[in-house]
């Protein structure tokens, strides 16, 4: 039986469901029940989650019950994120409501999901092997991730690696790619046909928009894969692309620094990281032009 998707629900019906019982969205491997009376949230879901399954409300186990609701109307409208009825964050401008939902969903996973070792990174796959790109904000991680996806890499996640500590495989969690500021127009320019969600202006991160996951990446969301490359990217304007092997030991420590829950997992987390490093080549990568970067990544050798 074919499951229902967001694109299969009419505007009116989706608006009504979001305002009342909510929708149960399967964003593999997690299930979110989402409620919101705000039109911008519905529009965002329709724009970038169009092809995600919507499951029955009454018979589905839900990992996270979330909502974005109005918080105040004067002097300017605000919205607030809720999880299980609690409000862990201060309100934001109403125009940021969809971005707030995305950030809140990420927070739920990184804060409460300890069945995987989670690492803040972009994650992609080619030829059955996984590229992990941990990096701090401003490093150009998401821009590079979006460009690689548009050049044929499969998106596992723009935000976090989910490492199965038993198998050593990285489990996909493909959700919309978060782009900021100039990157939005850069990626739009490379892919005019790509779908974007509502633009949130003047957020703490600047201007933010989310790009829809390509159909192939979504269709293969259950295909886990073995890590092969850990690359620490750094964008520098006009810099020539430069890829340099780096120490596995320091890479492990930096991966641990980028992990949301390594401290929770203790020895098992360390050993999982060590196996990941064992199976991967580790690099520092500096780039200033996306086309050069794509060329470098297309020639990454598969580790022996």
């Amino acid at each position, binding site marked *: 039986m074919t499951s229902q998707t967001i694109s299969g629900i009419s505007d009116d019906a989706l608006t009504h469901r979001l305002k009342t019982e909510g929708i149960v969205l399967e964003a593999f491997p997690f299930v979110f029940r989402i409620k919101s009376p705000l039109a911008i949230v519905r529009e965002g879901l329709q724009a970038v989650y169009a092809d995600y399954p919507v499951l029955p409300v009454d018979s589905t186990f839900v990992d996270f019950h979330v909502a974005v609701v109005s918080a105040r109307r004067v002097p300017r409208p605000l919205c607030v994120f809720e999880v299980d009825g609690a409000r862990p964050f201060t309100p934001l401008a109403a125009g940021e409501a969809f971005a707030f939902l995305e950030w809140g969903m990420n927070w739920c996973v990184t804060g409460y999901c300890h069945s995987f070792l989670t690492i803040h990174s972009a994650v992609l796959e080619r030829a059955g092997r996984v590229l992990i790109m941990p990096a701090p904000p401003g490093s150009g991680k998401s821009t590079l991730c979006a460009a690689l996806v548009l050049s044929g890499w499969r998106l596992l996640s723009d935000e976090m690696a989910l490492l199965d500590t038993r198998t050593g495989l990285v489990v996909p969690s493909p959700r919309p790619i978060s782009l900021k500021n100039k990157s939005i127009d850069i990626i739009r320019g490379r892919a005019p046909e790509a779908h974007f969600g509502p633009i949130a202006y003047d957020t703490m991160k600047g201007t933010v928009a989310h790009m829809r996951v390509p159909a192939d990446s979504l269709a293969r969301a259950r295909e886990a894969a073995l890590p092969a490359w850990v690359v620490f990217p750094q964008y520098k304007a006009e810099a020539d692309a430069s890829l340099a092997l780096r*120490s*596995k*030991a*320091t890479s*492990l*420590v930096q991966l*641990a620094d980028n992990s949301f829950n*390594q*401290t929770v997992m*203790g*020895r098992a987390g*360390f*050993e999982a990281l*060590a196996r990941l*490093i064992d199976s991967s080549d580790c690099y520092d990568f500096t780039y200033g032009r996306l086309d050069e970067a794509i060329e470098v990544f297309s020639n990454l050798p598969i580790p022996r």
Partner: protein
Amino acid sequence: MGQGQIWHCRRSADFVLREWPDASVLFDDATGSFHCLNPAAAGLMAILLKSSARSASSLAQELLGEQPDAHDVDMVENVLKEFLSLNLIEQ
């Protein structure tokens, strides 16, 4: 000086050492801390993790695979003092 001191690692069960050719990482499960070690330090730690109490001279001999000179023992003792300051081993 100090060559008669005995060094040992009482908390060896807390540690996991993963070695690579260029550098290694010691994980301390009791504190959740990571320590990057160069190959010589990692080799010394590997000996400490499987040994009972030893002198710096004895540790240097096993690390080098030959009779150490005074300079070698001093170098090993300096690393041992660093481990001691990090609460990884005891005297």
